[in-house]
């Protein structure tokens, strides 16, 4: 079973996590209705190295995992924090 090596927590199996999708920025307030609907429904589903939300259930904490959705290789796991840097944003 896949492992995530989480800061502070240590290595935990995939079964303890809930996948939260890619980290995305919300469209600006003046976006058109169609642009908003595309934000709500459309996804960047192509294989990519990207940062995703992963929730560790037993500790109730969110992590930002940088993962290659083609190879499943995990490049980095960071604690999701309120002070978001540019790099966290998509």
């Amino acid at each position, binding site marked *: *079973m*896949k*492992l995530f*090596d989480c800061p*502070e*927590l*240590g*290595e*935990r*199996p*995939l*079964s*303890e996590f*809930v996948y*939260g999708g890619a980290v995305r920025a919300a469209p600006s*307030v003046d976006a058109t*209705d169609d642009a*908003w*609907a595309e934000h*709500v*429904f459309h996804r960047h589903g192509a294989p990519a190295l990207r940062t995703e*939300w992963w*929730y*560790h*259930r*037993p*500790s*109730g*904490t*969110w992590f930002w995992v940088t993962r290659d959705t083609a190879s*499943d*290789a*995990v*490049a*980095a*796991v960071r*604690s*999701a*924090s*309120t*002070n*978001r840097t540019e790099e966290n944003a998509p």
Partner: protein
Amino acid sequence: MTFLMSSRVPPEHAPFEWIDRSRTLAFRFEGRTLQAHPGDSIASALWAAGERIFGQSLKKRRPRGVDAGMLVRDGALGAVPADDTVVTAGMDLRFLRDPFAHSLPGWVAAGTKLGPDRYYDAKNGGDLRHEYAVRQWVGLTELPTTKGAQAAKRNATDDVLVVGGGISGIAAALAACARGARVTLVEQSATLGGRAVASADGRARLLELLRETADCRTLSVRTDTTALGIYDDRFVPLLGPEGITRFRARAVVLATGRVELPAIFRNNDLPGVMTIASAERLLFRYGVRPGARVVVMDSSKSSALIANALAAAGSELSAVVETPGSVVEEALAGDDGTLAAVVIRSATVRSRVACDALVVSAGSSPNDALALGARRTREAVFEPVSRLVASGVWATGSLVGCSSVDERIADGARVAELATERSSTPSGARESVVRGPDLDAEVTPTVMARAALLECAPIVAHSEGGCFVDLDEDVELGDLEVAIAEGFDVSALLSAYTKLGRGFSQSKASHAQAARVLSEKSHGLLARAGRPLPRPPVRPVAMRFLAGRSLHPRRRTPMHAFHVGNGAELLIADDWERPAVYRRSNDRQSDVGAEVRTVRTGVGIIDVGTLGKLEIAGPDAARLLDHVYTGRFSDMSAGTCRYALLCDESGTVVDDGVAARLAADRFYVTTTTSASAVVYREMSRWALELGLEVVLTNLTGAIAAMNLAGPSSRAVLARVADDAAVVDCPYLAARETMLAGVPSRLLRVGFVGELGYELHVPADAGLRTWQRLLDAGHDADIRPIGVEAQRALRLEKGHVIVGQDTDALSSPYDVGLGWAVKMQKPSFVSRRSLAIRKARPKERALVGFVVEGQDGKDVRECHLVVDETGPVGRVTSVIQSPTLGKTIGLAFVPAGAAHPGASFTIRLDRERRTLARIAPTPFYDPEGARQRLDLAMSMVENSRWTVTRDRVDGDVAAQPGHARAEILGVHDVSRIGRYVVKGPFARAALASVGTPVPDAFFEAAPCGPWAFVARTGRTEFWLEDLGVKLDGAIAGAYVYDRQDVSLLLTGSRLPDLLAEMTATPVDPGVPRLHLTDVLRVSSMILGRPGYAVPAAQVWFDATYRMYVTNTVTAMAMELGGGWVSNDAVSALGFHFSDQSGGNHGS
């Protein structure tokens, strides 16, 4: 023909044999009683006993013997492979008869082939009938008639796992140990050694290495154990005699060796034809002579050893055929259908040689099923295995092409050192590290490996066929040629078409030969001839091993004992067991009706403890709620509550509940039963997204909740309320107050439409408060109310249940909840989508309806609403209202038809329809006067909420058991006080009472014999068994009593128990907290060093108490332990400084 002289050779010819000659055992084969030695395989025992035919092949009914992948039927086990199943006393073995195979052509079992003339006859009933006829005959075994116990699974981990106990595997294991690694070495067969035993040189070296392994402390060897596959992050499940070990290593070294290819010529499947590997096994491992008169066919100059050994063991060596100069063209069967002679052909001569065994060394291919699986390539080509297979997975020995014993030993050692070295780097970096150029030289396969692919005996075709490539599926050379000619000329299509390699053994060797045929017939280059990936598991696994112990987490509220004690019919919703209705008569409906009437006319009490209960504290608490929910909460005054509706980003209703403002910076929110975890999770995500300063706590399991409802509820509550005035709080008030000495939260809400109070108390006071209220309501005829009556009551009020009256696409406007959306708020999660959806023409509406007449009672939830065009809606809720005496319900109808008084058609079944009339909701007390019922106002101060525990002991009465405690004791320590302090000023709060303030996460800082403080979050600390008071005087530090169940686990077998309880390695000797799953439930485990025996403590949500404690106890008992008393653990030195509930003494 069969030679009857005994085939068993004297021990001196069979070094390293697997059998125990000192003992014999009896088994039956086809009704005959035969003798075998313990350790014999079925095949070796039969061969030794002179049995040459183990059965007939499944499709072409060919007689087959040893080394033919034959399956035999055992009475108990079903079909088992004869070559690698150990024979046991009393086995009753028979041919695996497959009546279908001879009565119908092979194509059906072979799967689908093309062409009408040959196989498919549309005129005569088509494939349907055809296929049904066939199905009656397929299959190897029957469905077993008994279950078979589900074996426990254990988790294990080591630095290095070496797969394959051949000489290179052993060398690798020792080298890794020498580097200081903890190593596990697994070997599929009964002993280490592999094929090294064939040579005198190999035997000598093997003995040295075996001596070293015996002395090596950090090496553990598992024989009779198969590595089933290499999964993510070096997860390698092992199948041993006792079941499955879920093994994880930092590095994996594969030393799985090579597979001998079967030679391909006519009748190459006759009993007596075998590969050199299998001949070696018969002779050296089982002491069985492969035959009396043997022909050896050799393509790699490697058969001298076996030839000499056979001669020495008394076989007559009739001929040695050296390819490609000369080849075996055909094998001939005697009258009994076994090998009698071979036809040898060279450039010039063609000769017939009598023999009863043909030992072929036709070349070999890497045994690379595990390696290819680890590589994760989609379609493999036929190529040598490189030493670095994948991140953290390595290969060595003959698998990568090493030939001589010395080379295999040296390579094993070198690769193991590399593997150990690399594995010490963190998993994140591993990928890049292994791509270092320095490694390229190391990992490329040897020249020999490349060469070996070509050093194969020629494939000898024959005009009359009978040249088998895959014995499992009876695939012949001719079948491959037909398939290729038909255009199935790449391996993936070829094997799908012919079923090559799809059999029980997944025919490792057949792909190599097929690749040669393909390359010859089509692509030309062996390297270009693809091969299908071998798919895990590498050997078939019984589902009882895979399933392991059957685990079904169940949650119960603190009042569960009362429910089952009072005739409640339980229903399971999510993990929860809830009372559907309390049965008092034989008439279920009248019981429900009576419960409804009780609430309407008197007073009832409902266990609503399964509701999600979240506390949101901190300066930004209101902002968070305003953002997540559709309503506005920032303008609420403390002491009030409001309906809270949750929509997702697309504006679809996902949850609802009540939000109570307890103080300027503290909200208490309820969610529906199924949504609590999700709402908590998404709220914390939004808090992060927005950068809000909030403290979220999920109190669902920590708080018991009950709804006291009915005209008399006020009188009943007045009797238990310490503050008499609280009962007169206004509708939608929220109070923190004391009930019967228990600190409680009181929400005055009216889900069921009567004067009612929702009472929230600490879980361990739940049952007591519940019973106090029942006592207080005795003369008011109070009675407990089940889920069904509750649903009826809310439906009479027209209240919507999210998930039942809404679906995956419902907007608030579809279901009449538009009033709960506050568009004035500048922004919230669903605002934009709701604005868009509100502007669109409404398609459907949820309306209340009434059905008069008899048909009403036949209306069911999810019956369709239909018109002449077909389905246009559905009934979402319906009941026979006990209060109103008619059928009422909610239904989706087309928005255009949703006029009060209008009628629509409900479809009852294929024939019957009934008319329903749209009626205004609520059906009952439309003005809501009864629930609002304005009582004399009297504001009360919000008292600070603290907790008192009542001392009910664990569900399982502890027994003494001093002895058990030393083996494996389970003791309930839930009674010990514990709480968390959270928030920006949590540190300050700790400092103020002088406890340690640990910086490192999850490390328990001791504060006494048992007590500790640990950091469990960025601004969260766990306090266990601390005497000090911490009443949260400091603003910005929030204190939450932990109501978890906690178990103390003690004794020498603790590591075994932990290995079954959790996948996370827990060292009892290290005082570190592990937040991880235990038996699939979110839990916390702590090593408890410093005691006479290994010890650990585990905490988990109290609603899982019965499920977890019962399961852990069952496991402990299997390991020789069980429940133990306080005396037993204190005798071992476990003392708890405070048993009065931590800082929350009443």
